[in-house]
């Protein structure tokens, strides 16, 4: 048996059917956001209105699952009240916690709603235990989500030096992962996750088909060109192929997905409290596929870390829904610091 508690499985919901899919397929917790720029998946037609939130929270909580609300963008000058109203709304709805990134908003939430549980968003960009402990000391944050730039040893160092829970990403699309500090999308379009809640907003994206190939443009900038049958990725600057010194290649980052199945026993051993699945922008089908696979893996791990073996069927299921041709362990196993 495991000495540590099994990590909680935290799954994304961009719609009510996705939330139900997460709950029905074994998520311990689901996270969602409002239909506006107070969260970092502010895409047309996605997310929850008040009615859907009430229904979703009821569906999850009556089944013993938790609901987190992401209010993880940065309040824009002159519009701070909109972000504060979002926090008030979350408290009224009775979510189990809010996921915040902005320090001013954390301050507002802890003073205005002392009973509301606060999580520090990955967008808060806390990569050291000093930063995590600061959020705990100043705002009573109970859990921090670590950016995807740390090795497993570094994650362990944070856990050993903080009294609060640590959540890490377990599956989903990767980018340059300079979370909360990335302005590449703004460089190309004037809009970014921090400001409008969307990376590379769809209104700037064009897919152009011509015989034998497809080109992707972001606000006119050629991001990539794919041959027929070549896997495509999201149209972000960090995943494009560019000509540098006469060579055309992925100059920043390749379209890749994170998949931690192989190191699940290690993640549990070092005391990670929760594993997050990326993808509120994806369909209920994706949520069901990924949730049930990670649930099966965690249940297998609960039987004992030494006997744990990754099943080929799990890898096949996760490989299918991945962005890019490869799934990696991201920064977790990088030898360099």
């Amino acid at each position, binding site marked *: 048996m495991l000495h540590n508690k099994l990590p909680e499985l935290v799954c994304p919901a*961009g*719609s*009510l*059917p*996705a939330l139900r899919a997460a709950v029905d397929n074994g998520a311990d917790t689901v996270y969602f956001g409002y*239909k506006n720029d107070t969260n970092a998946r502010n*895409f*047309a*037609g*996605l997310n929850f*209105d008040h009615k*859907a939130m009430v229904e979703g929270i009821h569906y999850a909580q009556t089944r013993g699952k938790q609901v987190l609300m992401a209010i993880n963008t940065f309040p824009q000058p002159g519009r701070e009240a909109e972000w504060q109203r979002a926090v008030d709304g979350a408290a009224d709805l009775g979510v189990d916690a809010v996921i915040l990134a902005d320090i001013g908003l954390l301050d507002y939430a802890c003073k205005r709603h002392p009973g509301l549980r606060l999580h520090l968003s990955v967008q808060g960009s806390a990569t050291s235990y000093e930063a995590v402990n600061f959020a705990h000391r100043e705002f009573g944050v109970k859990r921090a989500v670590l950016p995807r730039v740390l090795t497993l040893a570094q994650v362990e160092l944070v856990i050993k030096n903080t009294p609060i829970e640590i959540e890490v990403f377990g599956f989903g699309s990767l980018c340059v992962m300079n979370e909360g500090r990335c302005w590449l999308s703004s460089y190309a379009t004037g809009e970014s996750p921090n400001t409008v809640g969307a990376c590379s*907003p*769809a*209104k700037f*994206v*064009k*897919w*152009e*088909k011509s015989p034998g190939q*497809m080109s992707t443009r972001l606000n006119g900038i050629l991001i990539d060109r*794919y041959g*027929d*049958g*070549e*896997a*495509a*990725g999201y149209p972000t600057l960090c995943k494009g192929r560019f000509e540098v010194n006469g060579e055309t290649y992925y100059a920043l980052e390749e*379209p890749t997905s994170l998949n931690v199945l192989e190191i699940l026993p290690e993640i549990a051993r070092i005391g990670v409290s929760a594993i997050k699945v990326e993808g509120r*922008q*994806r*369909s*209920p*089908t*994706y949520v069901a*596929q990924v949730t049930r696979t990670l649930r099966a893996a965690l249940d297998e791990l609960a039987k004992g870390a030494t006997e744990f073996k990754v099943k080929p069927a799990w890898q096949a299921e996760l490989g*299918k*829904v*991945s*962005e*890019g041709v490869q799934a990696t362990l991201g920064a977790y196993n990088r030898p360099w610091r």
Partner: protein
Amino acid sequence: MPTSLFKSFAIPRFTLPAFVSAVGNRLPQWPHALVLTAGLNAALKMKLLPEDSLTLLEGRTFLVDVQDTGGRAAFTYRDGLFRPLFTLPPTPDLAFAANLSAFLQLALRQEDPDTLFFNRELSIEGDTELGLVVKNMLDAVEWPSLPSLPVFHRKAADY
């Protein structure tokens, strides 16, 4: 639409032989649009499609191209109804193209649209944001079971 009828039924990935599209291309295309808009209007009637997304579709033209059957359906949304277009628009605001198996997998929520897109089994051209509106609108629909859909109880004369 996911139904109890289809729950145990998995659509495999397949491509129809080329002669099917060769024949399909020569057939009139408007019946496809008629069937598709009838289905969408049935969903409208049941208030399954969110108002805020629908207003974004007003007056826009859509093309669904089933590549391996050679079937194409063009339609628009105007004054609260989806309406078939009997001539294909040269540059629709939004065009989806895929093989029949991919469309069936999407309709039954067996595959995720982004997955099909990454794997180049689904292509989206035109207004990308409009595409996202449509995708997210369909993702958010809580489909009832198939037999209760009014489209199965209505007479052709209703259209």
